[in-house]
């Protein structure tokens, strides 16, 4: 108990335990509510687990890319619009009018995401423009392009099961347990966490985010590394576009992902990323995405009013940023 009086602030103490603690607390809170108020239907079940994983998949995927960009000292506000662009591209190419095979259309959607990401990266690094402004602009460019491709209405297209079923729940009793798309997100999360920790690229990204001038003087190719982060983020939004197409039951919708960027930034920050760059965690941002989904699911379970739910999630985001600040002092 003596530590209570030490000079380390209690906020810092909580922050060090990371977002996992927050997720644990939220899960525990709703479970306790369940035990007390409705013991017949406990909060945690295999079904709810699969549902939460599925609902968090798109935000989680986007948050992996966002975290890489934020660690490198940038931000990407165009993710929501890019989700719309890649999903309508996919849907348009699959319509009889174009008649592309599912494999080729998938590759094209991924390529569109990659190119959009490269474009963001090049504009930020070559023209030395503020990432906030550049991606605010490309957000409108991507949204407009999506609306052009979709001719301002939803596109419905037939596709094989491996594509439309990406986020469908697996057959009951199968050992797969989670939708295949969720496994892809988990694998990518682990992969990128390893990339950050064990490769030169990862160390360079942290170095640039902490102090880009020092990184440049140390011989790191700042522009190339930063552009790569945006490119990866774009490619992941191509994949997220496939997920969106699957969730919407084989449709591309030009108004998909409105406001998604804020949710994704929130997931990254809750997961420990600092908007000043140089800090962030891939697994943390996935936990952040899951935590916000758990809150939403739990608020319906606990019959919290819609408006109150927004206040709760908003307060959580501010609290996470406060933790971030306290740790930096």
């Amino acid at each position, binding site marked *: 108990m003596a530590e209570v009086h030490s000079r380390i602030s209690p906020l810092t103490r909580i922050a060090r335990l990371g977002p996992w603690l927050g997720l644990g607390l939220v899960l525990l809170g709703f479970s306790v509510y369940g035990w007390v108020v409705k013991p017949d239907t406990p909060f945690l079940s295999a*079904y*709810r687990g699969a549902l939460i994983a599925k609902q968090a998949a798109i935000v989680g995927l986007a948050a992996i890319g966002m975290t890489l960009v934020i660690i490198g000292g940038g931000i990407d506000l165009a993710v929501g619009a890019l989700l719309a662009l890649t999903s309508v591209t996919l849907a348009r190419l699959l319509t009889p009018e174009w008649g592309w095979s599912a494999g080729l259309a998938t590759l094209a959607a991924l390529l569109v995401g990659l190119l959009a990401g490269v474009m963001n990266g090049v504009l930020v690094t070559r023209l030395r423009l503020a990432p906030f402004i550049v991606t605010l602009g490309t957000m409108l460019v991507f949204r407009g392009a999506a609306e052009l491709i979709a*001719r301002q*209405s939803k596109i419905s297209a037939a596709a094989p099961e491996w594509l439309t079923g990406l986020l*469908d*729940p697996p057959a009951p009793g199968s050992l797969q347990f989670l939708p295949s798309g969720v496994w892809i997100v988990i694998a990518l999360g682990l992969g990128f966490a390893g990339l950050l920790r064990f490769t030169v690229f990862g160390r360079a990204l942290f170095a640039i985010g902490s102090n880009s001038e020092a990184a440049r003087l140390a011989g790191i190719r700042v522009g190339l590394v930063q552009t790569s982060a945006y490119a990866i983020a774009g490619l992941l939004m191509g994949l997220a576009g496939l997920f969106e197409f699957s969730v919407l039951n084989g449709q591309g919708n030009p108004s998909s992902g*409105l406001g998604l960027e804020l949710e994704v930034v929130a997931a990254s920050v809750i997961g420990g990323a600092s908007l000043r760059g140089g800090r962030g965690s891939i697994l943390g941002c996935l936990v952040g995405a899951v935590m916000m989904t758990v809150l*939403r699911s739990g608020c*319906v379970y606990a019959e919290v*009013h819609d408006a109150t739910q927004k206040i709760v999630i908003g307060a959580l985001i501010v609290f996470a940023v406060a933790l971030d600040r306290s740790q930096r002092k």
Partner: protein
Amino acid sequence: MRVLARLGFGVAALGLLFGCGGSDQSGRPKRIAMIPKGTNHEFWKAVEKGAKQADQELPEVEVIWKGPPGEGDAPAQIGVVEGFLAEKIDGIALAPLDAKALEKPVRSAVQAGVPVLIFDSGLASADAPIVSYVATNNRTGGARAAAALAKAMGGQGRVLVLRYVQGSESTIAREEGFLEEIKKHPGILVASSDRFAGADERAAIDVAENLLSNFGEGLGGIFCSNESTASGMLTALRRDPRGLAGKVQFVGFDSSANLVQGLKDGVIHALVVQDPVGMGRESVRALAQALAGKTVSKRIETAEAVITKESMTTPEHAALLNPLGPQ
């Protein structure tokens, strides 16, 4: 040329100001400008179809269809109204994008002697000097949805209402109309009615899944107040592992290919749909009557219909489900 055009414009404007535009000359058809909220959505294309039908049947008027460049852009729509005033139009039919912002140009049109008819959604003040207001009664539509749902549920059970977005007048009227009517059935309990699905369809699916996972067991009926919300609920029902699709009575509002399929499959019990073709036709007819000096009813309600799986193949309902006809 430019000077001449300006001069012409000025003379026209003066003419309008003094109400002697010379539009009463017989023989020439009167020009009616019809200004929807947008031009891309199927709903507006169906309104246009009805307006064109009336245009064909009435030789004394000529309908000019022109929407704002993008839906949701009230200033652009104001610009369209002002443009028509400048070119000496005889009458205007307008679906205001913003109940308050469009009031001013409407008043200046009326002052300039151009009668204005409002369709689809109203203006903010009830005393606006308009010829008529032609629209569906959304409150009645909601009430009819409630009656259909209550009947399907046998007057017993728990219902769920998934709302669209805050601040959307038409859908809120539907939701309120629904809740008011459902209260009249003592055996029916509203389990939840405070959730908004939002405009994003994926978010609507998420909310619907969460609601079903919580209230799904023992649920008797569901109401959704617009196309995207009903679509989201339909997807969530179809994916429900307990097989709720078809077991729970589900009533939606508006139609689309997706919802019609749900109706066909028996997952949706009924759809309440508006009659956009009728709205376009009635608007032009009423405005033509007013221009001919006849009195017109201040409020014209276009019908809404409750369509079930059984009635969807009747010619009348098939036309309402697919107002633009086979494409």
